[in-house]
């Protein structure tokens, strides 16, 4: 996924569920055609996913896992057979965790300031936050590279972190801000009226209100970082993250373990998604 589109993903998913509405009156066959077309488009979205899962069980004879040769469970038994792949994945998880931790603090502070405070230049800050989401990744990656060249910094772990934090801040600020709108902020006044001081109010009232939004933004930011290829490619030097390993594999040899790990990541995301949904439902019920 690219960072540009992430806010809209969040908006679509977070939209309060309105009562199901159905538009009636269209002719039966027209309705049927529409549903079939929509179903086919949905199927199209899944075709590569089926292929990826299927080929995680492939037993390729050559270097490339592109044609079906036979069923095996070997790949799943040895997902970390290639140490370089495991190392790349570890590095990506590390980069995603560290960059998200930093970007969450910076981005959330901006979001809180934008929603909870009134200050001069607020709309300028608003606009400024959108700009990083509109620059094509290849241009941003190239621009960062020229900065590092100019400064004479060697590309590697630190420059990758710097790049990831840069594209995560805007995303997190916008996601958290969207989540914070529509909260009942009079609760803060109530807490102050009852004698709590500002810092107590912040930790006992404000923070618990916004934490779910921050956690959601952090998870998506983590996913963005883990998946980023284009920007990372420009600023990585000889350091190899998980997507960079995959890209190098396309040129040299594609082991089926790539499919195994991709499938595993998909399943883990699915579980996290389900747990998150159930957790939220439970909170709303209470």
């Amino acid at each position, binding site marked *: 996924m690219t960072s540009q589109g992430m806010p809209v993903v969040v908006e679509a998913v977070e939209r309060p569920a309105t009562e199901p509405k159905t538009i009636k009156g269209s002719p039966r066959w027209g309705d049927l055609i529409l549903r079939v077309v929509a179903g086919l488009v949905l199927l199209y979205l899944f075709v*590569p996913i089926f292929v990826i899962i299927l080929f995680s069980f492939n037993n390729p004879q050559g270097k490339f896992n592109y044609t079906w040769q036979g069923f095996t469970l070997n790949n799943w038994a040895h997902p970390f057979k290639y140490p370089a792949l495991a190392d790349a994945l570890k590095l990506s998880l590390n980069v995603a965790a560290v960059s998200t931790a930093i970007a969450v603090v910076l981005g959330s502070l901006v979001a809180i300031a934008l929603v909870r405070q009134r200050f001069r230049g607020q709309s300028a800050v608003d606009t400024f936050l959108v700009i990083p989401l509109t620059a094509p990744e290849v241009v941003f990656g190239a621009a960062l590279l020229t900065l590092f060249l100019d400064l004479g910094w060697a590309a590697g772990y630190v420059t990758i972190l710097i790049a990831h934090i840069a594209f995560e801040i805007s995303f997190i600020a916008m996601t958290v801000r969207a989540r914070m709108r529509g909260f009942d902020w009079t609760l803060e006044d109530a807490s102050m009226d009852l004698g709590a001081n500002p810092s107590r109010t912040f930790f006992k009232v404000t923070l618990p209100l916004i934490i779910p939004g921050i956690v959601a933004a952090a998870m998506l930011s983590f996913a963005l970082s883990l998946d980023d290829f284009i920007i990372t490619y420009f600023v990585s030097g000889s350091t190899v993250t998980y997507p960079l390993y995959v890209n190098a594999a396309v040129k040299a040899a594609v082991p089926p373990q790539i499919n195994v790990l991709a499938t595993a990541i998909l399943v883990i995301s699915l579980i996290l998604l389900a747990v998150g949904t159930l957790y939220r439902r439970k909170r709303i019920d209470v």
Partner: protein
Amino acid sequence: MAGVASSSRQRSKIAPYLMILPALAYLGVFFVVPFFTLLKTSLSTSGGSIYLPTLSFAWKFGNYSHAFSTYQDQIIRTFTYALVATLLCLVLAFPLAYVIAFKAGRYKNLILGLVILPFFVTFLIRTIAWKTILADDGWVVTALGTVGLLPSEGRLLSTSWAVVGGLTYNWIIFMVLPLYVSLEKIDPRLIEASKDLYSSNRRSFTKVILPLSMPGVLAGSLLVFIPASGDFINADYLGSTKTTMIGNVVQKQFLVVKDYPAAAALSMVLMAIILVGVMLYTRALGTEDLV
């Protein structure tokens, strides 16, 4: 917002600035400054060896005319591909978004989840999967050949169609979701009203639903067009040397050939064309409601 503004939490004049300062300073240094160094690089001359190129700033506008003349093909190709992919996304995404918004009933959230699910697999691996699907000895090519839609020696991989197909696939989610959001906001009573006033189905679609979905069309088009025109993975994995896009050249010039000024100039050209295109497009559709 007026009610919020009068709440007790903004007595401090400097607090908000202290809160936004770290992020803005960070983005200033690592987002704004890089565009100036890119601009500077694009006007420099390069010397030294390929391993250690040295840059000196020289107001060399020749880099730009060089970028335009040398990579004319790639520039035209890039925006053609991105445009076709955006249109394909629109055509494919509209029925799906429409059905999710109006016909899915209680399965709405499930289908939305399904739409997002494929995108939890790394973008590169999804594109590799298309390589398998479109392969010369794959079942798609065989099937199309049998039906006669593809000549016997015809290929899908390494063609423009494969690249455009990959671009379409990789960013269609960013068309489906904004379309869904704007369709979902439509009050169904408006459509019923148009029917009560004897509008045909087609007329209520073109006069009510389509105009009201414009913010989604606009947002979706930009969210597909911008990343698609900057992409080089699809052209690299699914295309051939005849389908290279600006991104491929920028990537190669920066990281392989290390001709930094030429690559920087081409990046600036890409950025400028996108900015102008986005501005014209937003003006034409008459809305600035992007986010």
